[in-house]
């Protein structure tokens, strides 16, 4: 199968393979995410969508400083995303990913929000700093 390779900057390394969930708005583990279910909360444009076990694609982070704790709680229940890709990450989302030790990459050579579609199969290589979109 053909693959399209995107190149980005690695903030935390590691590898992950899975389906993408693409958000158009900045994301925070506090407020946008329910650590009991792994889904996006009420009021979010994609309310009810599960990001557990998925590769989260979003413009950047936002919101309160307790977020890494929420990510930590979700991790104890195995309900976190398995990787995060951002246009340009903010420190709190970066710290959330570092806390649960999942790959997080940003600053890609293309606009990931328009390039990647929800349900796309991705291969994240946080050693090489690449993301492969399978089937493209």
């Amino acid at each position, binding site marked *: 199968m053909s693959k399209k390779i995107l190149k980005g900057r690695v903030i935390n390394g590691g590898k992950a393979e899975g389906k993408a969930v693409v958000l158009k708005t900045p994301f925070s583990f506090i407020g946008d995410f329910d650590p009991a279910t792994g889904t996006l909360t009420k009021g979010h444009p994609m309310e009810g969508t599960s990001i557990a076990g998925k590769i989260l694609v979003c413009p950047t982070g936002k919101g309160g*400083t*307790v977020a890494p704790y929420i990510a930590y709680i979700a991790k104890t229940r195995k309900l976190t995303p398995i990787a995060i890709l951002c246009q340009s990450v903010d420190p709190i989302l970066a710290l959330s990913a570092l806390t649960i030790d999942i790959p997080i990459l940003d600053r890609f050579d293309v606009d990931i929000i328009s390039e990647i579609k929800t349900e796309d199969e991705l291969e994240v290589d946080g050693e090489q700093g690449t993301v492969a979109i399978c089937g493209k």
Partner: protein
Amino acid sequence: MFLTQEEEDILAGKRGPGLQKALSLLVKYGDAFGAERLVPVAAAHVWAIDPYEFLKDLTEDVTRAGAPLVTTHPYTGCFDPDTWKDMGVPTDFAMAETELVKKRSPIIKRLNFLPTFTCLPFLVGNFALKGQILSWMGSGVQIMANSLIGARAQREGIVSVLASAITGKTPYMGLLKPENRWAQIVVKLDGINIEKCNEADLQAIGYYIGAKVGDKNIVLEGVPTWFSFEQLKNLMVPLPVSGAVAMCHIAGITPEAPTVQDALGHRKPEEEIIVSKKEIDEVYFEYAGADGEPVPLVVLGCPHLTIGELEQVASLIEGKRVKSRLWLGTAEQILALARRMGYADIIEKAGGVFARCCMAGIPFGQFPEGTNVVATNSIKAAHYISRIGGIKTIFGTTEDCVKAAVAGKWKSRV
């Protein structure tokens, strides 16, 4: 990143596993954002309720905090070890929390963290000065430290602030560097008489702007330089709730910004944003209550109530009695002052309960049975409680909220 010999030794584990883990986390975090070195922090402000295992891990063999001064954030999850019974919090949940407090307390004491349990540490002894480098959690105090005091606080979270408290260091990056602090966006008010805005209007303005500007530094025009701390707090705290703003210049108030041009670093702004009354109304609409809607719980104090705000609540509630539960978040030290002034007794006599907890984070705990609607005078609390707790929140002025608590139901102003 460049590391001193001492830092290299810590990373190699020569000073114990806790320091090693804490420093390694900071190095990873700093490397991600291109920090060239670590710098000493003047003070740290950490979470009161870090997960026990995590706290134990990062503090193993650490005898005392590396930062000269460390204070703690509020309890989170509608729990105060002293007042949970009066709050009506379920016993099983409170007992479990009490056990956790007992486990954490010896570590916090050993490290010399001051148990302030408030989100406004600069009101109770963590006094910041212009130019000082801080590692503080709390998006509200981060933006206020930067914008009102001229101290330097990076937007960061519970993990890095704990690591900074332990090691006394933080990566030199982002808003800690003078060149990253200039405003990028100019925000202007159109047809809004800000001097006439009440505390809820000011928060609605901040909430709208935050969603609009994301993580940019802004300069907000048209704010009188005589505004009180409370008025400025109301404008600023919502900015990193709907968005990720950590620097909001106000000419004549922000120490680095005598003028709008100074705030911009004498550069052209990337963008100009206008806020009008329509945008404020939209925020109210999002968190509107129906007339006569029952309100089982009213929460005030996100961020924690100041002594001036406690005086206001006391004057609104004196001689009355609440039908709803009324929780008031404030620091123990401010509460002592309120007791001396008689405000605390008036509020307690009316049925209000004080708590050293985070009023935005209450859904992380367990609400009293039957709590399906929460009214609050804080847009930040309204935002997080509705999203985290999945329950309806109503946002209004302090007066609206006190009236609702007394009547047991919301009274719409329109």
